[in-house]
């Protein structure tokens, strides 16, 4: 599952992401538009719902955080 999420994000971003802790928004790999598009694509693909509390958190857009949030959402 985790690998599937990572591959999905890497395909969307169009790059291999080496550092899983790095915030894609802060590093300029994603801009604000792409970040929200990614959220919506992830919601559709993995049938979960991100809350405002999730993606407004500073540093949310790292692979680790996104994977963790999706896994948490799947369990609920």
């Amino acid at each position: 599952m985790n690998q599937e999420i990572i591959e999905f994000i890497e395909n969307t971003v169009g790059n291999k992401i080496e550092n899983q802790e790095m915030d894609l928004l802060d590093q300029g790999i994603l801009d604000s538009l792409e970040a929200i598009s990614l959220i919506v694509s992830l919601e559709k693909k993995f049938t979960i719902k991100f809350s405002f509390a999730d993606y407004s958190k500073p540093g949310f857009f790292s692979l680790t955080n996104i994977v963790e949030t999706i896994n948490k959402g799947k369990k609920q």
Partner: protein
Amino acid sequence: MLFYLQAKYIAFYAAVLVPSLIIQYFNTASFAQKAKESLILLSSLFFLHFFLAVSFAHLSILMGLAISLFFTSKKGRSKIYLILSLVVLVLIFLFSKTIKTSSLQGHHHFFNVLGISYIILKFVHYLIDSKAGVIKEKSFLIFINFIFFFPTFIAGPIFRYQDFYEELSTTKKKDEIFSLIISGVKRIIIGMFKLIVVSKFTAPFAFFNLGPAFLLHSSFWGQVLYANIGMLNLYFNFAGYSDLAIGIGAILGIKVPENFNYPLLVRNLQDFWKHWHITLSNWMKNYIFFPFYKWLLEINNQKLSLNFISSLSLFLTFFLMGIFNGIGINYFLHGLSLASGVVVVFLWGNFLKKRNILKKYLAIKPIKLIATIMTINYFSFCVLFFDANTPEKLQLLFKIFKSYAE
């Protein structure tokens, strides 16, 4: 003279900063922590009442609003509560802006509180983040301090409650306090330099300060130069006050967020807003752009193109950023020019991206230089509307534009 240099302000800062330093230095007990929070709160209320002329009646209304929001905002509250509270806050915001605009036009109104826009932004942030469960730690005294914190009251930077809580509630080590004080003093000196030297020096040459007769007889390039100086004057003034806020905050042991990061070196308007009034940009991104863009993407069903949705969301966000300053034709045009500029930059970037030449384009140094110059000039053009805050100035601006159309 700069108001910060008047004797009463210096006396006020001495009366606040010296006890605050003593408390920070001996801050080992929870009593000392409460003493510091109380000292900052009393100083803020004193500053608002005696220096910003916020009456007791206004302070009571704002305090009442803050108290009701603090005790009613929590996770799990119904959406109707959130929507109603937001509507009330937006109405207060619009009302205060209408009054401010008419005050500028020579009328005086009873309800005209300086810094009200920033208070509303903080209320909205607290309300939404509480409802979403983002705010975990709550303290009434820290919340009231967050709303009325005097160094950032008039012109920001805008704190996130979570960061302010962290800053005020954490006991810092002595070496950290010492380095904060040093950096605070440095920032105050830098801020004073921007305000006293650079801002004062550029003020006489700023566009509208030159007078209609001079401007109407100036060449195109002369007018461009004065518009740029006007923008620089605004920048150094605003950045100077931000430096003072950051410096005073640091001496109080509170790291105030940065508001500017070399905005005049960026290559386009989209980037510009990551470097100019950063805390307002972040607020707009979190509470206007993200929800609106996400909502459009969710309801779209591929009827509208992604380009259109993105442009619309960017336009709305930056238009609101422009009219945040007031209600009036000039602020409307300021918002319109900012928003149009950002959308054009976005569409141009997409055009290059689709042709797979964006990376090459971005790497060309002469283009970067031209892009930076264009960004500065376009923003200076937008600032002309911002500065045209009287009917006479707006008329003068239209007269100049008309002379080019003829």
